[in-house]
């Protein structure tokens, strides 16, 4: 499967695939990386080190700040694969780069293609966006 690299990079990790939209602000605890929406079936799961697949990102413009804080604190996912481009998350990664902190790849892969991956599967992401099962 090949995703479109928005901010290219290499990563490896186990998949955490959400079925519904996610707002990083209000949906991810910046101090632990845990998913906080009790209305989500993944409530309590930690996104740190995972290859996070989300069909759609939603809601707050503070999501870039949560992204930056996760990167600064070492609690960020290994990579983010989103169904449609959301520049707000990418912005958090750009700012981390300017500040000289750790950054992660950001990819777009339509939700229908994300559905081919399941939770807990180990994958590797290449610079060109290729996602390979390990």
């Amino acid at each position, binding site marked *: 499967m090949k995703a479109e690299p928005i901010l290219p990079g290499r990563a490896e990790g186990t998949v955490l695939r959400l079925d519904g939209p996610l707002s990083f602000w209000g949906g991810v605890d910046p101090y632990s990386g845990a998913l906080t*929406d009790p209305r989500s079936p993944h409530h309590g799961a930690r996104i740190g080190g995972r290859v996070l697949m989300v069909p759609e990102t939603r809601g707050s413009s503070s999501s870039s700040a949560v992204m930056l804080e996760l990167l600064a604190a070492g609690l960020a996912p290994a990579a983010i694969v989103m169904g*449609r481009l959301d520049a707000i998350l990418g912005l958090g990664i750009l700012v981390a780069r300017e500040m000289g902190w750790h950054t992660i790849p950001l990819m777009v892969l339509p939700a229908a293609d994300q559905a081919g991956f399941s939770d807990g599967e180990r994958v590797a992401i290449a610079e060109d966006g290729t996602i390979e099962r390990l």
Partner: protein
Amino acid sequence: MALELSPEDEAVLAGRDGPATAMALRIVADTARMLGADRLIDVASSHIDGCLYHGDSGTLFAERLLADGGRVKVPTTLNVGALDLVHPGRERLSPEQAGMARRLMAAYAGLGCRESWTCAPYQAGHRPALGQDVAWGESNAVVFCNSVLGARTNRYGDFLDICAAITGRAPRAGLHLPENRRATILIDASGLKPALVAQDAFYPVLGAWLGATVGDRVAAIDGLPPRLAEDRLKALGAAAASTGSVGLFHVVGVTPEAPDRATVFCGEPPEQVIRLEPAMLEAARRRLSTGTLPPDGKIDAVAIGSPHLSEAEIDALLAGLDGRRVAIPFYACTGRHVLDRLGDGRRAALDAAGVTLIADTCIVVTPILTAAAGLLITNSGKFAHYTPSTTGWDVLYGSLADCVESAVAGRLMRDEAIWR
């Protein structure tokens, strides 16, 4: 498509205006590349969401801009911070967190932003003109700016807002382009009962439904009454921008880019038409409540004011209270632009009623609620959406009258008749 920078942009990137402006423009340009924009445009103003504390990283970024000589180039207002600077001690942050939150707020003030500390800057005198390009953050402010004022902004995330303010530049993309402002979905509300549409409590529910249904597409709602009050449009947009990524909606015959159907669809047929049925709204209304009521009906608190209450909304609260006193904590969140206009009389009346005024911040962005869990009622679609995940509390949605009557009684008093 490659991003083409102007000679002026190149000079700034080369460091002509100092390192902070160069870094800010690098971030704007990289965001433009991410969005596939062909060039940057000038923006006339900015509203900054990045002044809210989410951890030390945001403070360090703002302080870097300040230390490197950053200064906003266009008029810029500030969204809420994590501290109520008017009423010290309201928020329950550790001394370390409060210190970093204060440093963050000071850094943004130092960059030359106006200390408005409100999520309703459009009611605090910051009202860009129809068709003007601006760079705003804060999802409700963005949707209001686009939809109600007809100014043009994308949903700018934290950090891009201040970078645009410092450089006066933003990516030429998205809702800055007229072709992307055209409606593609028609929402036909003409079948709803006039008695329902006449209620304030209808608008957050409509917004919650809209956001969950259309995501980031541009909808035009037809069949709502003309001369819709600004506070209703504000509540609608805030809810839509919480449950979805709505950056712009139109109301035919009401909002400035939608004088009629033909104009808002640019003469083309809608890609989709949705006829609003009461059952859709009922489902959206149910999703705004998470709490189960204990058998005795007791609730623990009331919170209103997301977006920040206008002067008219404070007056409606006082009229509803009608001299009575609340029996449970009642938080009313607003901005200093409203506090300044209240005067001693209304301040004293709120105080006598037992209402806790919160300024500069609100209950979902910083810890204010005294218990770790509880059940809260609100008339705000945005509070209803975010309260469970940001505070750990359960939430019930109701009208302002439901909130006031419940607060006075100390248990749920909800009038369901308007929804039938």
